[in-house]
């Protein structure tokens, strides 16, 4: 535990000195926020809370990006192999990445909440405990995904390509930027297999204050199981040496980290109501719009078709 704490402190210091990290973790989310404010104006209402949820999701999801790049860079530069000479194992190295990333993300997330409250004229804090829980589990889970990516890629270029692909999918197909309801049915079905969807939906409904505790429990369990599985896989696949290449078969271990979400996705597609939550939130936003017609949006999500609520 002492090694983990020692490494966490140093990693935080290094992150605070890293301009790229500060740009992507602090400035970029703020640019999204400025964009949202310019687009929406200070109109108040539930739409602002929805935007806050989406913004928090983007910031939390970004965890995987920076961590994977940093770990691969450290390995390529031979920094990790110097640590290998010391009495420290992969566990503390990886745990310190997750903890430092979480600690560095918290102030950014808090600033986002406060700026959103002021700039978008939010009338409610949503469900702060649910937001805190999802941010905590989400940050750890997405950090672990980053560590897995670092474990199965050999170079920074390779890592960057894979990160970009995953980032695009997470960003546009999870509901973080484009509401799931407006996407084609097959994409909505596929989105239910993605961890990002649970984080985005959880944070958006929490920010709007509409999340039910059973739903929060479901989202949290999904993220916690994913983070535990992902942490163990990344610990097993951890490589100190720049020239130690990962065996092609080991890359299939990544799929193991997705098992909880295969299960959740299958369940949600068959019996779940996650897409209903999204529909309900959009409906609430519609209602809050001036000149809104009273016709409720008809949901066409698969969950509702199989299990109407």
């Amino acid at each position, binding site marked *: 535990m*002492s*090694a983990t704490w*020692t*490494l966490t402190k*140093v990693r935080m*210091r*290094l992150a605070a*000195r*890293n301009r790229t990290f500060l740009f992507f973790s602090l400035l970029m989310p703020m640019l999204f926020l400025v964009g949202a404010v310019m687009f929406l104006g200070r109109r108040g209402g539930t739409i602002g809370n929805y935007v806050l949820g989406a913004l928090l999701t983007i910031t939390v999801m970004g965890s995987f990006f920076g961590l994977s790049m940093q770990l691969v860079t*450290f390995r390529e*530069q*031979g*920094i990790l*192999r*110097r640590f*290998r*000479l*010391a*009495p*420290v*194992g992969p566990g503390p190295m990886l745990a310190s990445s997750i903890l430092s990333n979480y600690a560095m993300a918290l102030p950014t997330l808090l600033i986002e909440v406060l700026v959103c409250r002021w700039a978008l004229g939010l009338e409610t804090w949503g469900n702060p405990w649910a937001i805190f829980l999802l941010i905590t589990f989400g940050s750890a889970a997405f950090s672990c995904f980053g560590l897995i990516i670092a474990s199965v890629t050999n170079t920074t270029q390779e890592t960057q390509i894979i990160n970009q692909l995953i980032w695009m999918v997470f960003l546009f197909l999870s509901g973080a930027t484009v509401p799931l309801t407006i996407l084609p049915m097959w994409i909505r079905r596929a989105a239910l297999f993605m961890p990002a969807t649970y984080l985005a939906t959880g944070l958006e409904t929490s920010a709007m204050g509409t999340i039910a505790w059973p739903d929060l429990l479901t989202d949290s369990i999904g993220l916690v199981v994913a983070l535990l599985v992902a942490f163990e896989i990344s610990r097993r696949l951890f490589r*100190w*040496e720049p020239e130690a290449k990962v065996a092609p078969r080991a890359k299939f271990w990544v799929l193991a980290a997705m098992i909880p979400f295969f299960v959740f996705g299958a369940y949600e597609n068959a019996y779940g109501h996650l897409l209903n939550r999204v529909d309900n939130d959009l409906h609430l936003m519609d209602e809050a719009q001036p000149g809104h017609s009273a016709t409720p949006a008809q949901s066409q999500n698969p969950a509702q078709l199989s299990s109407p609520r």
Partner: protein
Amino acid sequence: MAAPVIEVKDLYKSYGPVEAVRGVSFSVEEGEVFGLLGPNGAGKTSTVEILEGLRTPDRGTVRVCGLDPQDAGNKYKERVGAILQSTNLPDKLRVKEAIDLFADLYDKHIDTGELLGRFQLQEKSTAFYKNLSGGQKQRLALAMALVNDPQVVFLDEPTAGLDPQVRREIYDIIEGLKKAKKTVLITTHYIEEAERLCDRVAIVDSGRVIAHGTPRELKHRSAGSTRIEVRLARPLANGAMAHLDAVSDCREFDGAYVLHSARPPQTIVALVKQLEAEGNELQSLEMFSPTLEDVFIELTGRRLRE
């Protein structure tokens, strides 16, 4: 007699088709500075990295302080310190932070202030790693290697690429370790380093130990002969040099003849007569006392840094 602190028996290591280490064996006693001397690619780094626990041998046994580096884990790491062939740290880590960081990872550690003083890094204690010179980086690497006050220290090419002044500073530090009775294993391709610092040396070539002993013993094996390096206006006829008076060995490197002679004056007189007879001219002549380089040349037919 106490058991050796480092014991290596019949060590093998390959990387694909390349056999880097081929049956290396040696032992190092407590408080001894032992050198692995050889050219680049001789298998020195592979050997020392197996000892550090960074690489797994294909075959053979290794014991350091009675422990197997592959299996002993943190218990082993607490007892050894090491400098890698190239140490790297995050660019924006400060010197003092780096020592503090590694100190905190060990159960037992030396005070950071003391290490900064010993390695003349006080003035650079708040400098970022990226802003250090090569010599300062290497002094920091040494400080980090000794932060846990290790019983055994592995130094892989500790002065490679450094200027002579910095190299001498590092020698002083290693001599300090010798005085402190640390067991040190050093790899190098610098003759001067091996002769000055090492109690015993193993000469390594193509993955094998081809000779070992004290530097004095090894030089005596060179038949106590003086090395004479000669440059001529025109090459001599085949074998003429080898037949000069008192010459025990003659090889040609880069247009120069390297002769080994037990009686240099007679050899030089014979050389001059030979040149006069052939109408040839002497461009330069240098004489050297026997060094480990001569031993290496005699054993392999190559210079150490070819």
